[in-house]
């Protein structure tokens, strides 16, 4: 099973490699360091969001509010710098993450305590948080000039040629993927998504874990908001609108099962990278940009189709195996024990 999942992620990686190779063959500048930096920069925010979404989706839930959370925290970060220009970077990041976590906690509390479907609740908070963002901003835009130079540098700086934002995203990915894969709590999230009733019976505190998953997703959306503010420098109330579908798309393309229980943060991150790269390479290939969205849609359909095909193959193999087991068992066995005393 592990091998199969790994293959699934390799598949997305392969698609990514093909896309890059094809584009680079057409225009070698696509592989220039500036160009790679650009793609990494563009992808890093989506990667952070996709990693957070993975944590929720493996528990058989969904968080549609991430776009609004990102918008709200991006604006809050800007406001923070306007109010206190000397705020250290770390404090700003913590504040953004904290605000995001708070939004996530709101989702998580409603979903886990009131026991209502995540799709409905997060669709609701998508509206509510966006509305709060709008009425808070009320037409105000935060410009690069309002933000301290150090913060903007954080958005564009590189270490050994790698953008700092991409490093942050990679660190988030590494931490979350390890947490999900190799820590008890992480594995419990998979257990909950795989079979909620069994999770409850085996004593996993399902409500608390689902709550935690939403807090993590919210916190990462908050972090993404800060990164967004640093990277783009201009923040208004519309930041991140419609991003939720892109994030879900990245997660699905990356092989995280929409019904929970399987998929990895690495896969989701590769999915996010693939979606971003499609955007850039279509631009480089001078394909009519109108085709971009259609291509993304096609990719999503292909990805879930592939998942289904792989799952069907596993099921067939399992069936074949257990049929073989049964045949072997029946040849050797008999049912005497039960039948002998039956109805005596």
């Amino acid at each position, binding site marked *: 099973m592990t091998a199969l999942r790994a293959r699934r992620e390799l598949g997305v990686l392969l698609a990514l490699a093909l896309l890059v190779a094809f584009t680079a063959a057409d225009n070698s500048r696509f592989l220039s360091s500036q160009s790679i930096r650009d793609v990494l920069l563009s992808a890093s925010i989506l990667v952070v969001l996709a990693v957070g979404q993975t944590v929720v989706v493996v528990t058989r839930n969904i968080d549609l509010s991430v776009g609004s959370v990102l918008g709200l925290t991006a604006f809050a970060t800007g406001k923070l710098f306007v109010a206190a220009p000397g705020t250290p970077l770390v404090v700003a990041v913590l504040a953004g993450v904290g605000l995001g976590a708070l939004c996530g906690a709101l989702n998580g509390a409603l979903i886990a305590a009131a026991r209502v479907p995540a799709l409905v609740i997060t669709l609701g908070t998508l509206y509510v948080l*966006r509305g709060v*963002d709008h009425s808070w901003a009320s037409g105000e835009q935060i410009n690069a000039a309002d933000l301290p130079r150090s913060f903007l540098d954080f958005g564009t700086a590189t270490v050994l040629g790698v953008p700092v934002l991409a490093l942050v995203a990679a660190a988030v990915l590494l931490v979350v993927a390890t947490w999900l894969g190799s820590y008890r709590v992480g594995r419990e999230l998979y257990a909950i998504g795989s079979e909620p009733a069994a999770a409850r019976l085996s004593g996993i505190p399902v409500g608390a874990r689902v709550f935690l998953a939403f807090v993590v997703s919210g916190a990462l959306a908050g972090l993404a908001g800060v990164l967004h503010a640093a990277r783009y420098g201009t923040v208004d109330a519309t930041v991140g609108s419609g991003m939720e579908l892109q994030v879900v798309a990245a997660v699905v393309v990356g092989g995280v099962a929409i019904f929970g229980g399987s998929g990895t943060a690495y896969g989701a991150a590769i999915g996010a990278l693939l979606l971003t790269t499609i955007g850039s390479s279509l631009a480089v290939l001078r394909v009519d940009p109108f085709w971009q969205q259609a291509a993304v849609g096609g990719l999503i359909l292909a990805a879930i189709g592939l998942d289904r095909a792989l799952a069907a193959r596993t099921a067939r193999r399992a069936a074949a195996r257990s049929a073989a087991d049964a045949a072997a068992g029946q040849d050797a066995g008999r049912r005497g024990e039960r039948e002998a005393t039956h109805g005596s």
Partner: protein
Amino acid sequence: MAHDSLYASPQRRPGAGRGRRRTAWVPRRWDAALVSALLLVVLGSALLVDGFATGRNAQFLLLDAVAIGLVALPMTLVVITGEIDLSVASTLGLCSAVMGQLWLSGWPLELVVVAAVALGAVLGAVNGVFVTAFGLPSLAVTIGTLAAYRGLAFVVLGDQAVADFPGDWTSAAVETAPGGALPWAMVGTALLAVAFGVVLHATPFGRELYAIGSNAEAARFSGIPVARRKFWLFVVCGAVSGLAGVYWTLRYASARADNGEGLELAVVAAVLLGGVSIFGGRGTLAGVCAGVLLLGVLRNALQLADVAADTLDIVTGSLLIVSVVVPNAVAMARARLARKDRHEGTHERKFG
């Protein structure tokens, strides 16, 4: 119990039966509650908001509700079978774009309209094939076609806006029945709503949808062709979205690739607010109609009262949350009360 299963098909939800039974009274009560809320809001707005209680305003309000109302009808049926179609707004946009392109190339408008609706049906059929023949989750499939159809809309019409539709057609889209308050488009939508209501609540087909949404396997064992029913629902959903695209194009006299962007969430919000369970198997069409109108009236009244547009987002979102939290909370409270009663009852027996 609900949160661990969100959009899982019913058989993947062990223990759901128990949770459902406990709240089985809710749907009937919810749509009734919603209708009363609607009446209250209408009454309150008429008294408190200047300019609300006029025929002209009713016309504006109802015109704005037509597109959401149209798409909400088949969406209700789709959600009751436990599926969802997020591609409706993109279908609307693609049909609108194609409509513009065909009109540009000189097709007669009558044919263009039929072609747009037919195209909607085909797009719905594509969703249906992915969901029923390949067995893929409709949430993921229709997020995919959401992107794909919108993308195709831009491919078809690009950045143009086709606007030179004949005036008698575009004015027919906003014209009202004698009396001035009721747009013909809303009359059509209402007739369609009645048709959908009858189909859902009083025909074998409708009954089968509830059975499918509650337990698809048992439905199959009862001889109901589950896949075929779902497939046709997606087709109908696409066709009605195409029809909504035609309406949208004529009403705004503008065929554009971005028409109706984001409408899918508004439709889903209205349907869920209307008391349809996202898990399928529960909900009424009356509730959904009340949900559509409630959101429309609120939007209109708040705008008239000069409340900023962002407040409307907050209200919509909160209503949506309330629509699932309140029935659940009431059910839980009732269960607790019932337990308490029983305890008191046993005490009485003991000491009495």
